[in-house]
């Protein structure tokens, strides 16, 4: 069963415009949700986790249990935000991470 869905494979926005990367999940328990980012020629790294309720590099993500979503948002996109973004769910039972297929974000100067 697909646990994490990222409906957009590619997303382009202009510099300074708001950006939202969508993520929906399917999990019966209490999920831990994450966003990971992969910049060009760098390894995949954690961007933020819902449990910390943090803002990293201007990005935020709110867990909406009613809509089973964890969309990533930034009010003003920057060129350096261009990267591949992956939404991930950690299942407490079994301790397994499930990753979405990723969204490639391009910020147009």
């Amino acid at each position, binding site marked *: 069963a697909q646990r994490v869905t990222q409906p957009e*494979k590619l997303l382009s926005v202009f510099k300074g415009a708001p950006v939202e990367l969508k993520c929906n999940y399917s999990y019966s328990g209490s999920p831990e949700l994450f966003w990971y980012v992969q910049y060009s020629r760098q*390894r995949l790294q*954690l961007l933020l986790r819902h*449990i910390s309720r943090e803002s990293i590099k201007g990005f935020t993500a709110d867990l909406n249990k009613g809509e089973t979503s964890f969309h990533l948002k930034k009010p003003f996109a920057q060129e350096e935000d261009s990267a591949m973004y*992956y939404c991930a769910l950690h299942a407490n039972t*079994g*301790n397994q*991470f499930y990753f*979405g297929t*990723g969204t490639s974000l391009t910020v147009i100067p």
Partner: protein
Amino acid sequence: GAGVSQSPSNKVTEKGKDVELRCDPISGHTALYWYRQSLGQGLEFLIYFQGNSAPDKSGLPSDRFSAERTGGSVSTLTIQRTQQEDSAVYLCASSSKVRRYTEAFFGQGTRLTVV
């Protein structure tokens, strides 16, 4: 080590040959994952190890693919009789269940090219 280490960084092999890819997880991490990332594509789950439990092999694309994790630490992903469609970046990640804030840490990947 300080992070997840994968070797080799790059591997070029001839079609039909076998290859072995190695992953050294972070010391003490009980969970280890292998993923594949094809050109322009996202992450494709291959296999998951958790402690001494039977691995989740549901993502392996064919019986040419296999993986082992010896002593709960180092893992080797083996691809037999490689095909051109096996060309991709193979990523390894590890995570720990102990910490309050769990996180998956990724290696830099092995870029496999089958010619």
